């Protein structure tokens, strides 16, 4: 543990950018937690007298076509966007690692068939698959989470399967088996904790991608519905005004989205450097 902390400090010292990312991340979490309290205006309140107003001291990010304060909307949207991404990543991470570890441990028929299913899922361009899934299941936030989880699932299954496969013949697993541990106990007590670091790194790397994916879905009109403040929808709202001078409607939610993904990716990279220094790129 102390080694880990020391190497964490070294990694952070080498990459000041990671510290910046950590700062952004805290800011996002703060916005997500306190969103409605920080926002100076009601994100849904319309006021036609200020419609399409440029950024000013009263309205930092300007106002949209219905006169809603964009700053408040961007801040309030943080919670929903982060929630979708976290929920999807946790869901696919937990389900994927248990399935992957189980088939990597048992092999045989289950392994062959699940691997085939994973191959099929990976045969689709993933965003297209997510699009079709949301369209088929219905246009709700829960279904966006499910769709994002489904397209993330193959990565966890493959990773957990490969990692378990390497370890299943190792001495401590055999010792546990000889000692009379059940398969479930070996899997959950001996193997899963050992492959956890790799999975956590994968999850943190996927987080940024999950945010992008969910925002992309709502950008094309799937998932989150119109008045709800959400970054993807807000960018879609602003898209029609970009060619007529009102750049702020699309830009600020877009920037928030970029910032979130950027900091998630940097944190994921940093985490990988700490957990697995060999795979540094």
């Amino acid at each position, binding site marked *: 543990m102390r080694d880990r902390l020391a190497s964490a400090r070294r990694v952070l010292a080498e990459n000041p950018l990671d510290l910046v990312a950590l700062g952004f991340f805290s800011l996002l979490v703060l916005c997500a937690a306190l969103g409605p309290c920080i926002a100076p205006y009601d994100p849904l309140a319309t006021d036609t007298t200020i419609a399409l107003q440029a950024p000013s001291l009263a309205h930092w990010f300007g106002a949209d076509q219905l006169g809603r304060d964009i700053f408040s909307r961007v801040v309030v949207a943080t919670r929903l966007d982060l929630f979708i991404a976290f929920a999807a990543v946790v869901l696919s991470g937990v389900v994927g690692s248990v399935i992957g570890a189980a088939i990597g441990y048992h092999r045989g028929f289950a392994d062959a068939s699940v691997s*085939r*299913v994973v*191959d*099929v*899922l*990976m*045969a*689709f*361009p*993933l*965003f*297209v*698959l997510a*699009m*079709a*899934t949301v*369209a*088929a*299941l*219905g246009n709700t936030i829960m279904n966006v989470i499910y769709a994002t989880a489904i397209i993330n699932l193959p990565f966890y299954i493959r990773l957990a399967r490969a990692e378990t496969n390497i370890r299943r013949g190792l001495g401590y697993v055999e010792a546990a088996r000889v000692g009379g541990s059940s398969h479930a106990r070996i899997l959950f007590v001996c193997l899963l904790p050992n492959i956890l670091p790799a999975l956590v790194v994968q999850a943190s790397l996927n987080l*940024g*991608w999950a945010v*992008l994916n969910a*925002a*992309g879905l709502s*950008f*094309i*009109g*799937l998932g989150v519905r119109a008045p709800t403040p959400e970054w*993807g929808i807000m*960018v*879609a709202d*602003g*898209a029609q005004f*970009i*060619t007529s*001078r009102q*750049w702020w409607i*699309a*830009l600020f939610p*877009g*920037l928030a*989205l*970029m910032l979130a*993904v*950027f900091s998630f*990716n*940097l944190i994921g*990279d940093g985490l990988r450097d700490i957990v697995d220094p060999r795979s540094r*790129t």
Partner: protein
Amino acid sequence: MRYVLRRGFGVAPTLAGVLVVTFLITHCLPGDPAVFFASNPSMDAGAVAAIREKLGLDLPLWRQFFLYVAQVAHGDLGQSITTGQPVARDLMRLLPASMELTICAFALANLIALPLGIAAALRPRSLMDHACRIISTAGVSLPTFVTGLVLIYVFYYLADIAPEPIGRIDAFAVPPPRVTGFFLVDTLLSGDARGFVMAAKQIVLPALTMALFALAPLARMTRAAMLGVLSADFIRAARANGLSASTIVFTYAFRNAMLPVVTTLGMVFSYMLGANVLVEKVFAWPGIGSYTLDALMALDYAPVQGFMLMMAAIFVAINLLIDVVYALIDPRAELDADA
């Protein structure tokens, strides 16, 4: 050759799975197609039932599936309700637009990413290396639809260099006679230089948008692979033998470093085919992505089904191609497969 054939057969189960998934997903799409066909208000329940029967919607699921497979085998992807045309014809008509965009973006991404990655690996911790790191981390963080809008704002609205971001060619211009469907090629074939410039101007921004997103993983992988190879023993031996730097980098290191990069290409292509939908929407590009989105919004599910199938088929074909290229670069892959 035997390797290629065997790999070709290997994708058959995956394609079968793709058919099942496509069928099941589109089967769950909301909206009853029979009611859609029977949109005439004078139609009663009996007429709707007749249409359901005609469309085979009253059959059990597994029989519908086999009907569907038989149709696909005949190249029939169903009828689009919105355009009134067979989906297969619509897709084939619009595919060149999407392919042209994707290929341009892919070429652009490679042109930028490979030299950047190599330069970064040759001088670790140099300015170039930091630039590579920033570009590759920032690149994957850019939502394509935001980058696209920013590019439109800067180059169309502010700088006024780019044409209006609608479609593949100026609305008042005559599209070139169709030979390949790629406007860039067709205008050249018909000797229409002005048309070529016009089409090129239209494609630059969307292609750049997609390339920015795709080049990040490529640059990153190239850098990592080159770094790994450059520290290998055989490179040190080559250096000790006094080979020139360019021979070492391009003949020895580059070919070896290409292996992981070629594998990444598959992933990059998957992203690009997905991002295509978003980019086409932002730039009003008349490709299969926009077509499918319109169909999706109209609850017209045959085009969605056809689109998914086509995307998966293209992606499987590309992965196959990548495997073959991989075997060409690294003859060991073929041996491994035989063993």
